[in-house]
């Protein structure tokens, strides 16, 4: 985890140094809505649950409607820093993104290359994860804290890679390809059970691990300036993000029967599966120079 924090620190440092050397500033604000789909090649649970099988999904995909807000700052024509957050249907903040990019090579009128590094945190729902015990332990009544039958599963990605930008009159295109690591933020949960017609009670306690995995992200952005003045631009924008990664969610399972003593501890590492994240959102971008 320290390694990822260092990468985040470097990203923030780059952002701060860019702000400090501000010359010709440019601010952007964009508001967009869209859809996020998360697909995981789910396989049947074995002897232990795979929490990724309990992600919110309809069929194989989890679909989320999103409202995204993004703030951008360019201290000069080379640097671009943006941060944003996303709101899901519960109107709570779920996503956070931070990215820094710097132009590479000589100035060209239409196209430029840049190197970008970014950090993002997005969430998805984990639903009814106690169903595994309900199905497997038929002699037991399973209790999950009703306040936590649905919880947020947070995914952190830290990536870096090249970006290609094309600009012609009012049209702007951006294509980025980044590689990095992704990992689920660890969480802890307890599932309690009681055997029917018996005094036997037991508890499963799960402590998940960060489980980092290589991740590849492709971003494609399109914007068209509807209004252009000397110091203000209003554009429509469409952005698509795709991530692919082979993921698992490792955890430690502690099973205690009767009392907390003499618990049975098992480290579980479900088989890795392909995990695909796609997002398409469209909206308006305001640019102030």
């Amino acid at each position, binding site marked *: 985890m320290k390694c990822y924090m260092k990468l985040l620190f470097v990203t923030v440092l780059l952002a701060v140094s860019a702000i400090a050397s501000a010359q010709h500033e440019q601010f952007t604000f964009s508001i967009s809505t869209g859809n996020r789909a998360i697909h995981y090649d789910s396989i049947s649970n074995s002897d232990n649950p795979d929490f990724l099988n309990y992600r919110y999904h309809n069929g194989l995909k989890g679909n989320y409607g999103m409202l995204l807000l993004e703030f951008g700052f360019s201290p000069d024509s080379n640097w671009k820093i943006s941060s944003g957050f996303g709101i899901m249907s519960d109107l709570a903040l779920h996503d956070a993104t931070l990215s820094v990019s710097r132009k590479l090579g000589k100035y060209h009128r239409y196209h430029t290359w840049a190197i970008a590094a970014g950090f993002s945190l997005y969430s998805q729902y984990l639903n009814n994860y106690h169903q595994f015990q309900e199905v497997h332990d038929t002699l037991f*009544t399973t*209790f999950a804290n009703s306040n936590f039958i649905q919880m947020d599963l947070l995914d952190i990605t830290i990536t870096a890679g090249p970006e290609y930008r094309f600009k012609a009159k009012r049209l702007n295109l951006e294509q980025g390809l980044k590689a990095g690591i992704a990992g689920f933020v660890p969480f802890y949960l*307890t599932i*309690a059970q*009681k*055997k*029917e*017609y*018996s*005094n*036997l*009670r*037991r*508890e499963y306690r799960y402590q998940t691990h960060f489980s980092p995995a290589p991740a590849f992200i492709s971003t494609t952005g399109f914007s068209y300036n509807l209004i252009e003045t000397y110091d203000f631009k209003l554009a429509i924008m469409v952005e698509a993000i795709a991530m692919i990664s082979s993921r698992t969610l490792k955890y430690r399972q502690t099973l*205690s029967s*009767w*009392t*907390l*003593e003499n618990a049975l501890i098992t480290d579980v590492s479900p088989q890795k599966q392909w995990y695909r994240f796609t997002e398409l959102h469209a909206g308006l971008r305001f640019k102030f120079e």
Partner: protein
Amino acid sequence: MIRKLLLLFFVITTIRIASSCCECDESLSYFDFNKLTLANIDNTGDWPVSTASDSMWFEAVAFEAALFDSTGYYYAMAKPSHDLHLGFQAAYSCKCSFPVQSMQQMSEINIYTLESLNDSLPAGANVSRLFVAQSTSGGSNSTLYVSLPDLCNSSEQQRYYYGEGVESFRLFLKIPVSSPFVRFEMVIKLTDDRELTSQTRRIYIRHQQTSPL
């Protein structure tokens, strides 16, 4: 005239507010645990509930123990409260919490079977290690039980409030019972070396499990 009347109402209301304030004596009253009772529990469902029935399932033998002062806690209420009456009768009584604290805690719990539980546990055997406990006062994040020594260790000298001065906990037998009936005696040793004893009623064991309607 109206202003004078309003002023008069203001003064009366102020005095009534003042008279409704009271200062409770929060000093502790002390009591002794001198009584132990045991009641039957139906633990066939999700959560244990008290029952008057003397039959239990062979894997669900459970009791609730209550430790308290049989003389009641009325002495705690004998302390005078310091009401500010100012010549007016208070509109409502001064509600004080009357904290009480036991002079002793549990130091050891022993349970003996008065009937043969199975071939290896004849009548008279100490079966304490076969029981686990659960405090009724809550405060635990876990639904699991604790061992009897752990229950004793956790029974700190706590402050109760009037109407609450009962140390109660539930006892659950871990092993299935093969005999047709059971009966237990419980002996609780207190930190002042006194022992409180109580017996359960004779419990008839149900072995055939049928689906509830």
